[in-house]
C-alpha cells in the first residue's frame, strides 16, 4: 500500500486567506480560513489591493496555525501546493511566493494549482468520486459546465456569456440593500420570502447548448425594484424579491443542466454523476433543486459540504495530493497568473 502523503495547501486568490493540511487518506487535518469579508464589506465588493495587503500580513501565521492544528512538523510534509490562478494576481502572488519559499527551505515539490480545478476536484476528496463526471462550477468569478475526465483533463461544455452566478447574487444583494457577500445574504433573506411573487426571466431556457446568462436577470430585477417606487423596500418585499431572484437563478441552472448532461453523455456515455462546486454551491435551494434535476436525467448530484464549496485551502492541498500521485509537480519558475482557463473552448 502506498504510504501516507501529506500536503500543505495555500489559498489567497480572492478574499480568504487560507491554509490547510490534507493527507492521502483524505483526512483534512487542518483547514484554517481567515475571511476578509468585514474589510471589503464597506466597498460592497472585493478591493484587490486591500485583499493583497491583508494576505501579505496574515498568510504566514495562517500557515503556522494550520500546521499547529494538524500537529504536523515540516518534516512530515510531502509537498506544498498553492493556488497559482485564476484570481486577483496580487493575492495569488503572496500565496505562490509563500509556497515556493517553504518548498525551497524544506526541499519539497511545489505544486501550482488551478483554483477552478481545486473546486472541481473537491468531491474526490469528500466523496471518493471516480472520473469521469460532469461538474457545474458556480462561483464569484465563474460559471461553467465541465466534463472532468482526470487530473488536468477537462472539457468545457458551457459557460456564462456575461456575469457569473455568484456575481449575479452579489449584484442583486447590492441592489436590495443586503450585505456582502451577496449569495448568503440573498439566501437568508429569501428564507421568509415568496419565490413566486415577482416573475423574473429564465435566460436561455430551453435553448440548445449549455451556456448560461445572468445579466438579463439582474436588469429585470432592477426594473422590478424601480417599480416599487422611491420608498425604501420593506422587509417583506425585500424577502419576496430575494426569493424570486434566487428561484430564477436556480431554475435557470436546472434548465441548463439538462443541456449540459446531454453534451456530457456524448463524451462519456457511462458517466452518472453531476458535481456541484464553487461558492454558489453553498446555496441550499440550489442543491435541492439540482439534485432533483439530475435525478430526472438519471444522474446523481454530489455537492461537497458548504464550507468546502466556498474558497478554502483543503481543496488546494487535495489537488496537490492528486498531482503528487501522478507525478506532475511544478518548477519554482512556474508563473502565477490572473487568467488561467481550466479548459479550452466549448465542445
Amino acid at each position, binding site marked *: 500500500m502506498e504510504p501516507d502523503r501529506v500536503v500543505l495547501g495555500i489559498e489567497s486568490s480572492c478574499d480568504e486567506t487560507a491554509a490547510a493540511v490534507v493527507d492521502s487518506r483524505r483526512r483534512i487535518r487542518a483547514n484554517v480560513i481567515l475571511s476578509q469579508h468585514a474589510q471589503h464589506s*464597506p466597498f460592497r465588493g472585493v478591493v484587490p489591493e*486591500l485583499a493583497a*495587503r491583508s494576505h501579505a500580513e496574515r498568510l504566514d501565521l495562517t500557515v503556522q496555525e494550520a500546521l499547529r492544528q494538524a500537529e504536523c512538523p515540516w518534516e512530515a510534509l510531502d509537498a506544498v501546493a498553492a493556488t497559482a490562478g485564476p484570481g486577483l494576481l*496580487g493575492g495569488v*502572488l503572496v500565496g505562490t511566493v509563500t509556497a*515556493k*519559499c517553504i518548498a*525551497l527551505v524544506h526541499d519539497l515539490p511545489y505544486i501550482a494549482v488551478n483554483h477552478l480545478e481545486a473546486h472541481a476536484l473537491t468531491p474526490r476528496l469528500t466523496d471518493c468520486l471516480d472520473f469521469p463526471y460532469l461538474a457545474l462550477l458556480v462561483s464569484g468569478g465563474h460559471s461553467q459546465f465541465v466534463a472532468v475526465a482526470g487530473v488536468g483533463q477537462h472539457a468545457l461544455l458551457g459557460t456564462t456569456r456575461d456575469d457569473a452566478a455568484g456575481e449575479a447574487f452579489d449584484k442583486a444583494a447590492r441592489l436590495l440593500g443586503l*450585505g456582502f457577500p451577496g449569495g448568503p445574504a440573498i439566501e437568508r433573506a429569501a428564507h421568509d420570502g415568496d419565490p413566486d411573487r415577482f416573475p423574473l426571466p429564465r435566460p436561455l431556457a430551453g435553448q440548445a447548448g449549455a451556456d448560461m446568462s445572468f445579466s438579463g436577470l439582474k436588469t429585470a430585477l432592477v426594473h422590478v425594484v424601480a417599480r416599487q417606487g422611491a420608498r425604501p423596500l420593506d422587509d417583506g418585499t425585500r424577502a419576496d424579491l430575494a426569493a424570486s431572484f434566487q428561484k430564477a437563478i436556480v431554475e435557470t441552472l436546472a434548465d441548463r443542466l439538462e443541456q449540459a448532461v446531454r453534451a456530457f453523455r456524448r463524451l462519456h456515455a457511462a458517466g452518472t454523476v453531476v458535481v456541484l462546486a464553487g461558492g454558489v454551491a453553498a446555496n441550499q435551494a440550489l442543491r435541492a433543486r439540482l439534485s432533483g434535476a439530475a435525478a430526472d436525467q438519471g444522474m446523481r448530484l454530489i455537492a461537497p459540504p458548504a464550507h468546502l464549496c466556498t474558497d478554502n485551502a483543503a481543496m488546494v492541498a487535495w489537488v496537490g495530493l492528486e498531482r503528487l500521485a501522478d507525478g506532475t509537480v511544478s518548477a519554482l519558475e512556474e508563473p*502565477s497568473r490572473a487568467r488561467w482557463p481550466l479548459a479550452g473552448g466549448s465542445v
Partner: protein
Amino acid sequence: MLFLFFDTSLDRLSAGLAHEEQVIAEHSEDCPRGHADRLAPLLRDLMAAAGLRFGDLDGIGCTLGPGTFTGIRSGIAAARALGLAANLPATGVTTLDALAHTLICVEPAGAPVTAVIDARRGELYFRHFRPDGTPVGAPLRAPAASAKSHCPPGTRLLVGSGAAILRDVLGCGLPRTDVRAPSPRALAVTLNRALRRHQGHGYISGPKPLYLRPADATPPADWRQPPGEA
C-alpha cells in the same frame, strides 16, 4: 551572522548572501515586473552556488518599501515564509535607508543625503539622512510640488529615481542619478544591523510592509452598515 537578503521593491531585483557586512554572493538584474515568480528560483540558485542550506543561516532580510506594491509584497511574503519555514528571524529595512547607504557605504557622503523615489502620479517618497547615514525623521510621501517644505535647507546629495525631480523642485542639491536601486553591499550593511538585534532567535513575526500610499479604495458615498452585520 550569516544571512540571506533581497530587494524586490523597485524595478531591479537584487539578492545575496552576507556574512556580517560582507557580501559573499550576489545577483542583480533589471526586473520591471514579475519579482515574485523570479525570486524563489534565484534564491535557490544562490544557496546552491554557495553550497549552503537554510539551516546554516542566522537570518533573512528584505526591503520593506516604499516601492511598487506588488514588489514590496513579494519580498515581505518571501521573507516571512523563509523565516517561518527555517525558523529564522526575518526583518527588513526601508528601501530608502538601503538607497541612502548605497552611497554612504562606498564613500563617506560629506553632506546630508536624501533618498528619493519617484512615486509616480506627481509624488515622491523620500527620507533624509545625516552624512553618516543616521535617518532624520520618518519616510515621507508628498507631491513633488510641495516636497520643498519637507526638506531641510542646505546642499544635499540626492539619491534614487526621484533625485532629478527633487533637485528641480529644490533648485539645489546634487542628484546621483546613477543610483536607482539599493546595491547588494548597502543591503548587507543595513540588514546586518537590523538583524543583529534578533540574532539567535527563531521566527517571531514577519517584517511589515511600508507602502506609504493607501490602497485606492473609497466606499460608495451612500454606504451604510448592512442590516444584520456587526
